[in-house]
């Protein structure tokens, strides 16, 4: 039987980081997590395992976050551009950037990945989940997870290669 404090509530921070990865907005991500948790709790009788709860929450959270950014795009409200512009405008070589600026640059790389690659990078590299679990959570094959993650990492690697060739 699903318990709110043991099975649903501990997912809050993982869901928050996922929503934040998609929306890049703290307030909206918090609302999405709250709505996701309430929704999962209302469907509690349908779950048999805690992994089923997590899969439901990740799907609901992801869909709500995507709806949120789609709504913003329709309204022509730009996402938090300050994050992206800050490093783009830096004309200094990579080596001279501060550590914080470099992390901001990595953040930008993550955020510019296609949505599916971004979510799989989030679940694997940030949350440290095995391929099998990611496949179950996203209801795709393990092979698809590996292929998508490979593409994402290669994209990031290429950006690092550019540093060697062009300085930034």
């Amino acid at each position: 039987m699903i318990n709110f404090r043991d099975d649903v509530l501990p997912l809050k921070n993982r869901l928050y980081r996922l929503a934040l990865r998609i929306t890049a907005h703290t307030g909206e991500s918090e609302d999405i997590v709250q709505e996701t948790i309430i929704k999962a709790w209302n469907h509690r009788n349908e779950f048999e395992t805690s992994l089923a709860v997590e899969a439901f929450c990740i799907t609901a959270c992801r869909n709500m976050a995507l709806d949120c950014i789609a709504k913003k795009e329709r309204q022509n409200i730009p996402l938090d551009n300050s994050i992206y512009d800050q490093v783009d405008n830096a004309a200094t070589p990579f080596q001279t950037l501060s550590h914080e600026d470099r992390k901001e640059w990595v953040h930008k790389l993550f955020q510019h990945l296609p949505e599916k690659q971004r979510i799989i990078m989030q679940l694997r590299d940030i949350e440290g989940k095995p391929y099998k679990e990611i496949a179950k959570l996203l209801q795709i094959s393990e092979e698809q997870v590996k292929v998508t993650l490979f593409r994402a990492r290669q994209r990031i690697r290429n950006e690092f290669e550019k540093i060697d060739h062009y300085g930034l």
Partner: protein
Amino acid sequence: MDYKYIEQLLERYWECKTTPEEEKLLQDFYLQPHVPNNLEKYRCLFDYEREEKDICLDSDFDERILHEVGETIVEAKHNNLFFRLYPIYRAVAIVAIVFTLGMAAQHSFSTEKDSSETTINYASYKDTYTDPQVAYEQVASALKEVSEGLRDAGLQTEDTINIKK
């Protein structure tokens, strides 16, 4: 220090051939302040991945969400407990009904029996004396004997108490 292993690990990371434990090892490797130049450029990536894990919701989130679903939880617990004990309630109710009916039946039968036993039938009594005067004297004599016996017993008790004092 030989960094060959880290370089191999990095290569396997890009190829998606590392385990989550090996990826954690890479993140931990970048906790040290000085690494060779060829590895230094990836520091920001692994630092970023490690630090992103620490992003959390505000501490008051729990309070708000528990308040939101609190009533549902209480209600759910009550419902579940009620439904779980439902067969027991039924069994107890059946036993109580049978017991009450049994008690009522038993009481009604015993009342009939008692009433038949306790009713005095004066007609069935027979006198032991033929002369009423003799009977009266016998009863008076018996009562006098009883009275004297009681008085003697009372006096003896008083004497005993006085001696003890």
